[in-house]
């Protein structure tokens, strides 16, 4: 029942003359996989879902389901169900009839549709709630019903538009477990949109990062963490260390000094980004230290602390490092930093346009 979704060069210009909300977006969602589109608000990620669902027409590009072009196919014939951030339960229907909606509009007899609705309510652990009016539910329950309603439509692709953003942390984790469980049982193809890297991490097999309407990078999240293709990706995933410099013969030279890079990178200006988890803090005299500096700020993050280390130089460069669990360092302490070669990534400097030059974005994969 689940199908492969193939988005090709999707472009959407809302009003002629304005900047495109989505610009040449290409993404493969293999059958049975869950792919997350990750981006800040206004990045065009909801537009991806609306174009996929057929709620809006793309200005250019195509949506293909198992190879079949869906251009001109109305939303109801696409076999995609969508769960929005707001549950949008029909207020004039009971919980059960909400879940039975897709079957009813398909012409399934009422009794059969209601029986099936009960099954799906059971799947989202809401068996016995069917008789309640849709309004008599809590936020988490509403979103579960919305999920059950979408699943009961037996969609070939399930579209999720920030479905859990309005829920509190505990409920969100519960919903993540539920969705993971449902994926095991029903094996749906899922396209998820979120602004939260943790949510993408919890749910998706692969992630596509969107910024300013353009695809920045796609791949497994681990790869994106390790090798961000642009400053936007690095920032969205929580990277803060950004050291401008120049690359020559596989060496990045900056306020931190010359640092060898793991793979071939074309010569020219480039920004060095390093994830704080990869940076190791040692004594200032440690011969293994790549740079030395002073702790200027400590940010607490649960058991672990994040330190900002100021490296002396003409422009004052800061590097962030995560300490081991339980380790403490006061501000003002001089330290040495080890930047493992494999953790050094160079991305193109932020140009006048926020989007990276596609030709240059390849360098990070070196």
């Amino acid at each position, binding site marked *: 029942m689940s199908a492969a979704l193939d988005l090709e060069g999707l472009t959407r210009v809302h009003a002629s003359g304005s900047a495109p909300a989505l610009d040449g977006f290409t993404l493969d969602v293999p059958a049975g996989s869950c792919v997350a589109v990750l981006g800040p608000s206004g990045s065009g990620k909801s537009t991806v879902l609306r174009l996929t*669902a057929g*709620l809006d027409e793309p200005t250019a590009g195509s949506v293909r389901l198992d190879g079949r072009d869906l251009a001109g196919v*109305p939303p109801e014939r696409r076999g995609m169900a*969508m769960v929005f951030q707001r549950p*949008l339960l*029909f207020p*004039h229907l009971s919980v059960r009839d909400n879940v039975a*909606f*897709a079957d009813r509009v398909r012409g399934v007899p009422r009794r059969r549709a209601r029986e099936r609705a009960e099954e799906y309510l059971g799947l989202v652990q809401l068996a016995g709630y069917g008789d309640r009016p849709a309004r008599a539910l809590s936020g988490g329950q509403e979103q579960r019903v919305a999920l059950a309603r979408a699943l009961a439509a037996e969609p070939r692709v399930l579209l999720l538009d920030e479905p859990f953003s309005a829920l509190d942390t505990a409920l969100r984790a519960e919903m993540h477990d539920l969705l993971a469980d449902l994926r095991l049982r029903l094996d749906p193809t899922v396209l998820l949109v979120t602004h939260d890297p943790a949510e993408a991490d919890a749910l998706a097999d692969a992630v596509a990062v969107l910024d300013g309407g353009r695809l920045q990078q796609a791949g497994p999240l681990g790869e994106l963490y390790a090798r961000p293709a642009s400053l936007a990706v690095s920032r969205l995933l929580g990277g803060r260390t950004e050291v401008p410099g120049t690359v020559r013969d596989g060496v990045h030279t900056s306020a931190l000094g010359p640092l060898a890079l793991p793979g071939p990178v074309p010569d020219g200006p480039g920004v060095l980004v390093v994830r704080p988890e990869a940076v190791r803090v040692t004594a200032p005299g440690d011969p293994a230290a790549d740079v030395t500096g002073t702790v200027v700020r400590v940010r607490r993050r649960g058991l672990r602390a994040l330190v900002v280390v100021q490296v002396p130089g003409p422009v004052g460069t800061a590097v962030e490092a995560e300490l081991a669990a339980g380790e403490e360092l006061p501000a003002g302490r001089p330290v040495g930093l080890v930047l493992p070669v494999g953790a050094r990534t160079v991305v193109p400097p932020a140009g006048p346009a926020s989007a990276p030059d596609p030709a240059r974005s390849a360098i990070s994969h070196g």
Partner: protein
Amino acid sequence: MALGTRLGRAALAVWLLLPLVPLVLWAAADRWTAPAVLPQAWGTAGLRDAVDSGAGTASLRSTVLGLVVAALATPLGAMAGRALAGSGVPAGGAVLAALLSPLVLPPFAVALGLDVLLLRLRVPASVGVVLLLTVAALPYTTVLMRTAYAAHDPGFEEEARTLGATARRAVLAVQLPMLAPALAGAAFLAFLVGWSDYVVTLLVGGGQLVTLPLLVASAASSVGNEAQVAVLSLGSVLPPLALLVAVGLLGRRR
């Protein structure tokens, strides 16, 4: 509660109720000569007189007129309201102003102006009355439905579409049920316009279309038949009142 507040509220209740008391008393009075404070004889003489004057057929006519006006003005107003709730209508402000213009222009002036034209075009009187009253009701239905559509979240229909409902089905199964209270309110107001109109029916109907308000006016303009006036008046208040209560209860249940 302070005595002043209580007195003030009592005065307001009296203000709202007092004019209706004579209607109730007179409607049940067979004989009530001054200076008696209450009728000397109770009975149904007023009702009998009212029925004799043709109240039965007149209220039937008023009902049909109200229903026809509601049946025309509600869907038209809903469609216009839906369009005006969005930004798609060119010069939307001007269009809305045009649709509201019947509220501003005195109905008698519109009726007088159009009457001559309708006579020349040989439009049947009843058609003319329906046309004018529908136009008079459209501002109410349009404004009400525009507000309702502006508050309505189109996400519900989009959700229905992704669940497999056609555009038509999404309107029928989702949009209209959700907007049912507003539609009922709009239809009620439109019905009221047709049911209670006097001056348009008088001027354009040319005396052929005798509705309940025409009977009330003709009875009230002569003297000595207070009981009949009271019965006819109550007869034109109670049906819409019952409708209002029914619509209100329906709205509360939802």
